[in-house]
């Protein structure tokens, strides 16, 4: 009997909520991803806009893409949606995202000049502004100051050659000690080295350049990490433990690792630091994070844009950093004293020189192929030139399809 009343309660639940939104208040539906559980900003917005009720639905990151697909299919998405930056071209090309260009004058906080160069590249598709950066992340070099000092680089390596030199010395320690991890399953990781070696991978005319010296050189450089024992071919060492124990005195990763190292390796406090990536032609890093877009099926476009504008204000960006440790996308927020800590300041510096991956909808598919090709070279021992010719051919086919 108890079961039955629960069932009935559950069935009626949905309709009541629908009414609630209608009582003179406009309802704004917002989809946010997984770990954004803090509602401070939402409450602040509702206080400032008493006529609006924001209903947030949290979506687990792992299934967010599936959920967004079905929303597009049924043409019944939310008003505002948080997007992983690499998904934007796909959804924009499908026409799922509202063109925000007409609103830029009215809401100056959305204008491009407020954001880092790399982030600006994620805002527009086909000359339309379709999304606004909400928070950013970039990758920097984390290193053990004490161990790197022993091999002569107390400030961390500054160039590719220094990195290689330091790496080989570190690998020479033996006993299961290595120099650095390589995230070979992550195309963002491989892309950074390609950019640093002067490769754009895919140019504005949608032509791939994987079998050219710049890209192949980057692959060769990374492969040499394996060949010289700087990096193990397969490793499932826990990064935090290995950083603490010195097996991996260096790794390249994003801001979320800071708190991780502090929590899980408190013993090495003061013995580690972050620095911008070592340079070849340049020291470009990857720029990721999340943007906010308006679904084009919205009936509350005005309210939706206003909400995004609020989220992009300097104060909101700082609050978001306080509650969720998400780095501000708005440049001016970085002047705040919160970012004076050198470990964080590095990220601000690196953001000046960070780019998103090529902004085309085929990128996910191409990067899967590129990762597979790199795996064939490293694990399978295949020839770089052969694999890269093949990769370039596949990429050309994919890009020519439409």
């Amino acid at each position, binding site marked *: 009997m108890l079961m039955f009343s629960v069932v009935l309660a559950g069935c009626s639940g949905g309709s009541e909520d629908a009414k609630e939104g209608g009582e003179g208040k406009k309802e704004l539906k917002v989809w946010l991803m997984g770990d954004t559980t803090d509602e401070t900003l939402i409450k602040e917005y509702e206080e400032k806009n008493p006529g609006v009720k924001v209903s947030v639905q949290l979506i687990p990151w792992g299934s967010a893409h599936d959920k967004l697909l079905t929303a597009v299919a049924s043409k019944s998405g939310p008003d505002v949606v948080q997007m992983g930056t690499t998904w934007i071209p796909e959804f924009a090309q499908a026409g*799922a995202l509202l063109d925000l260009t007409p609103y830029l004058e009215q809401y100056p906080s959305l204008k491009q000049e407020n954001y880092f160069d790399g982030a600006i590249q994620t805002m527009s598709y086909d000359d339309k502004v379709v999304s606004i950066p909400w928070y950013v992340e970039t990758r920097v070099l984390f290193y053990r100051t004490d161990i790197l000092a022993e091999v002569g680089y107390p400030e961390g390596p500054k160039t590719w050659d220094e990195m290689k030199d330091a790496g080989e010395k570190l690998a020479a320690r033996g006993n299961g000690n290595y120099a650095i991890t390589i995230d070979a399953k992550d195309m963002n990781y491989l892309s950074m080295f390609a950019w640093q070696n002067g490769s754009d991978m895919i140019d504005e005319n949608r032509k791939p350049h994987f079998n050219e010296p710049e890209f192949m050189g980057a692959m060769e450089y990374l492969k040499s990490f394996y060949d010289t024992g700087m990096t193990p071919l397969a*490793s499932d060492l826990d990064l935090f433990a290995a950083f603490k124990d010195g097996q991996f005195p260096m790794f390249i990763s994003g801001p979320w690792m800071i708190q991780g190292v502090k929590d899980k390796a408190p013993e090495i406090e003061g013995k580690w630091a972050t620095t911008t990536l070592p340079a070849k032609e340049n020291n470009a890093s990857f720029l990721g994070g999340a943007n906010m877009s308006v679904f084009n099926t919205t009936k509350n476009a005005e309210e939706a844009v206003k909400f995004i504008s609020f989220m992009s204000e300097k104060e909101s960006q700082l609050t978001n950093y306080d509650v969720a440790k998400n780095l501000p996308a708005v440049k001016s927020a970085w002047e705040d004293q919160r970012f004076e800590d050198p470990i964080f300041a590095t990220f601000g510096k690196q953001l000046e020189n960070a780019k998103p991956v090529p902004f085309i909808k085929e990128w996910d598919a191409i990067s*899967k192929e590129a990762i597979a090709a790199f795996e064939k070279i490293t694990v399978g021992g295949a020839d770089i030139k052969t694999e890269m010719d093949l990769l370039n051919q596949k990429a050309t086919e994919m890009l020519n399809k439409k």
Partner: protein
Amino acid sequence: MQNFIKRFNHYKYPYMFIAPALVLLLTFSIIPIIVALVISFTDIDLAGLANYSNIEGVGFDNFINVFKDPVFLKSMFNTMFYVIIGVPLVVMLAMGAALLLNYGTGLLFKTFRVVYYMPSITNIVAVAVVWGYLYNSHYGLFNHILSWFGVPAQQWLTDPALAKLSLILLAVWKSIGLNMIIFLAALQGIPRSYYEAAEIDGASKWKKLLYITVPLLSFATFFVTITTLIGWIQFFEEPLVMTKGGPLNSTMSMALFIYNNGFQLSNFGYAAAGSFVLFIIIIAVTVLQFAVKRKDVEY
């Protein structure tokens, strides 16, 4: 017409009994698969999903391309490997476990029923985390145990040859429990009198097992074999959560290939073509099973 009504009246009950189930299956399985069949002849992607006017027919291109795709061919080979090793293991171990648990009636045996069933009831996410640790080459329990015997550490999930076997081990572990209780339920249906008669004839335990128990389990064995086979041809969750199909696609299964192309890359048409190939393979294998079974019964 009247004849028809009369006929229908005669069969009213069976039709009424199957109607709800059939209507639901028709709506949520048969119609969608027809939709998928149509999709497999188009180039539908996300843009097509958003606006149907973007969809174009491509004839048999998707089917031709999928057979040219080395990853798909590899996934077919891997799937065969999983099925050939995994299915017999599951059926035998599940039957063995059921016989073992059916041996006694004490508290110990009752408790262990739960123990043997536990793996089947675990959330796949939990399984992934726990087995990820067990297989971890540095902190994992398996390598730790191997080290007691002086065996060098193994790369359980990153060695292309070993990874497939590691996934099979996990999947077998996970699917024993469910099939075991089906056998257990079937074992309960064997009348005690059969054994008593055999005992009077002086049959040994082994003979009783071989000539009474196993043949009388044939209904259950058939069921378990078919469902396990169908399940394993659709092998999906284990590689998804443990290896994502790597290293070098050596653990890629057909279902994972379909998922990757459909949901990760939004190539719905291509994925639908792949899934039709999978669908046809499953039907062929099942029909074969039924045919073999029919022969069996006739002897």
